[in-house]
């Protein structure tokens, strides 16, 4: 995106006239509100904003945004977005997807979008279930998930969206929760990042997978189980009584107690969002809190800028001339009399 004068808008400006059709109580409503609330703060113009989605409950999202929107086909939003962004890099492109859309049918496209580093925001609504098709287990469902297609419980290991993103080469990885007040801040950080910004949003499916995230999202559990990261700040949670430290013997992250605020004494790590290794460890951390906020943010040149630059430099000093183009190669002139052999 080119630097532009911030555009003044309000939340209402970002609401389309379409009736929102998610199940009552769905986490998607909260995400929609958070996005609509964030947009005015970004200072962007609605006409330069494009929401592109695949298929699934979350992928209805573009219809509800008063922007340009493209509800594409299952799993292919990253590929469509690639064409849109390369054709017009000035557009601000948001990709809306779900766990099945992004990691199952569209896993290949997601991997390549992230490794190429297309300058877009990816919001992956993870509800660990196929909602629109009525409740089958998804690639992020935990082992043992009972569903119409797995009546005896699922047996395959789930994918971890953020580990997938890091493994694919993503330069921005963050997490948020549908109903949490911090979600707009995560979205702002994603938007500020130049390159593919991957955001996993834990989203509750009230009908088919209700409360699957409650162990860390429910109010009574939140403090003890949510680690909100901030760049340059110590990794503290549970009202500062606990922190994350590095166990050098096992090369893993451990929960340590922090007594009377002495986090340094307890060996608590300070979050460095440019540290890829720590990001991997935060994603893989088991038994402790769930790492939330910006896990990793370390920009590098984007795919779209590289393509545009190569198009420019390869065209430099060349004048397009169709007549010349069709006349290229070894040519010969035929006159009325065939020339003698």
């Amino acid at each position, binding site marked *: 995106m080119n630097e532009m004068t911030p555009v003044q808008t309000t939340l209402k400006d970002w609401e*389309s006239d*379409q009736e929102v059709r998610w199940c009552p109580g769905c986490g998607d409503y909260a995400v929609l509100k958070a996005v609509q609330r964030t947009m005015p703060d970004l200072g962007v*113009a*609605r*006409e*330069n904003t494009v929401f592109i989605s695949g*298929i699934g409950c979350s992928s209805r999202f*573009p*219809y509800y*945004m*008063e*922007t*340009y*929107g*493209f*509800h*594409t*086909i299952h799993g*292919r939003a*990253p*590929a*469509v*977005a*690639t*064409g*849109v*962004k*390369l*054709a*017009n890099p*000035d*557009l601000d492109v948001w990709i809306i997807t779900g766990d099945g859309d992004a990691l199952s049918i569209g896993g*290949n*496209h997601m*991997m*390549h979008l992230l490794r190429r580093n297309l300058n877009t925001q990816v919001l992956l609504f993870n509800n660990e279930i196929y909602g629109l098709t009525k409740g089958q287990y998804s690639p992020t469902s935990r082992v043992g998930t009972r569903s119409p297609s797995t009546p005896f419980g699922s047996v395959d290991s789930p994918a971890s969206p953020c580990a997938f993103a890091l493994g694919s080469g993503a330069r921005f990885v963050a997490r948020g929760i549908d109903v949490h007040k911090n979600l707009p801040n995560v979205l702002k950080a994603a938007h500020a990042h130049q390159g593919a910004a991957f955001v996993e949003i834990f989203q509750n499916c009230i009908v088919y997978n209700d409360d699957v995230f409650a162990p860390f999202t429910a109010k009574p559990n939140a403090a003890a189980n949510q680690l909100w990261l901030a760049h340059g700040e110590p990794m503290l949670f549970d009202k500062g009584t606990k922190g994350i430290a590095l166990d050098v013997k096992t090369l893993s992250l451990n929960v340590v107690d922090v007594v009377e605020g002495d986090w340094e004494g307890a060996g608590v790590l300070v979050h460095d969002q440019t540290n890829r290794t720590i990001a991997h460890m935060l994603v893989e951390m088991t038994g402790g809190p769930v790492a939330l906020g910006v896990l990793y943010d370390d920009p590098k040149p984007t795919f779209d800028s590289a*393509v545009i630059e*190569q*198009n420019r430099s*390869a*065209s430099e000093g060349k*004048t*397009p001339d*169709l*007549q010349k*183009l*069709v*006349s*290229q*190669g*070894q*040519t*010969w*002139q*035929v*006159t*009325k009399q*065939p*020339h003698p*052999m």
Partner: protein
Amino acid sequence: MATAVHKVTSEEAAANPPPEAVVVRFAGDSGDGMQLTGGQFTLSTALTGNDLATFPDFPAEIRAPQGTLFGVSAFQINFGSTSIETAGDAPDVLIAMNPAALKVNVETLKPGGLIIADEGEFSDRNLAKAKYDANPLEDDSLAKWQLMKLNISQLTLDAVKPFGLGNKEALRCKNMWTLGLALWMFDRDRQPIIDWLKAKFARAPELAEANIAALDAGHAYGETAEIGGQVGQLSVPAASVEEGLYRTVTGAESISLGLVAGAQLAGLPMFFGGYPITPASAILHHLSRLKEYGVTTFQAEDEIAAVAAAIGGSYAGQLGVTSSSGPGIALKTEAIGLAIMTELPLVVVNSQRGGPSTGLPTKTEQSDLYQAVYGRNGDAPMPVIAARSAADCFDAAIEACRIATQYMTPVMLLTDGYIANAAEPWKVPDMSGYSPFPVRFLEEAPEGGFQPYARDEKLARPWVKPGTPGLLHRIGGIEKKAGSGNIDYSPENHQAMTDLRADKVARIAVPDQDIEIGEVGGKLAVVGWGSTFGPITQAVRRARKKGLDVSHIHIRHIWPMPKNLGELLKGYDKVLVPEMNTGQLKTLLRDQYLIDAKPLNKVSGQPFRIAEIEDAIEAALGADGK
């Protein structure tokens, strides 16, 4: 030099009058550089002013095991002083670089035709690999042909000795020695080849010099007294063709140039999404070098991403194009449906190959016609255009761009492996003769308000680029409400929108069908499409010379069909449809016009021979075909 005894009967001689054209087939191991040799021979032939057609025939394996039957790579060229439309039925000259090349190709050679064989490669080991019990160069088995056996391997080694190459590298110059001999036989200029070698080996001048020495030695071998008797120089006079500037072009080049021209005539940059697949990759290669024409090429992660990105490109206001072959088109099919539903322009090029599944990747077929016309879920009509030759690809591609942008629809452009690879002379078009068809994006709401699915007189919806203030809207693959484009599942709306999508395509203005050769009405029409153009033209021409009442009709607009086609076909007693499939256009014609179209099918991976169609014409007309 040993020459086999002639046993050509007078009957055989009468069946093969001195040709106005000569067919030469270069055949060797897939590592012998036969495609390169053929390509360079083609260039020098074109420069001499002959009309020509070529047929590269190579295995799917990049380097099949040496000396094997399935590793044989061949290149056939037909050139002459008359109009040439096919690569020729039977070669007059076969150049066989090893026993396997001889075995695979010799039966196609005309009786009395000339075999030039590299006897240096006819070792016991190579003979065994080619499954020869005895050396055919030494027994009578090749007696109905002329045989010239030369130790090309040794002659090449001798010629390049001064350059100090290793044995293996030195032997790689064999193809240039052979080319040199062929150039002498047909009185071709060596200079273009020498220039090309110098450019190709600019960084390794000793290789350039060695190859040139081999080329010269082959030429000199022909010129000096070492070849005697019946094998002399054949002079094929230049064809009398239209005046103008000419070049050679392959179908892949011609499609690429046509797409660039089409985008320019529409006033649009082009976004090309592609994924490597034989035989379509060459289009991606060509376009990736043409950035100054506003072309962005994107090698996607798969076929689906290639088409999806092209749709994204169109949505953002460029001309989205994707290209593949049958298996890849199958993968793109769901996305093509999305382009139909969202009514965005898109050009899909299908360079057809033998199928189903992986099928015959390097061999040609026309078996994706059903796929193009019918092969999508839902009622999903889409225009289909077929190019008939390498040169014709240029205009066919422009036509595809015109329809896509004027009617807001994906368009399928069919070519095939034969057209994609084959080279032919092309009269360089005068670009000022092409009328532009500039796209007008909708930039502000019309009177009465903006409707994303409003219709113009062609039933096309407006094209709005994201970034345009005041025209915010959403599109997608769910059924659209007529006009507003909002989601609408209601029964009456789906009926109306399905009818509308069909009407839009059915009403596309395509030129009336004309007749290639012959008259309106008569005993027999031979109806073709795509790359069967050459053999059908020649067969019909020959049949008419014999006085048979037969006409040739060749269809470019497969869907929608020309408005006059039904009436035209009903004017003939019989309709014969030769196709390189099991009868797909035949089915379409029967379905559309209730006519008794008869199929003539070939799915061997090889183009039709003229004689095959000629025989079918005679059979259709019976003894008294006049």
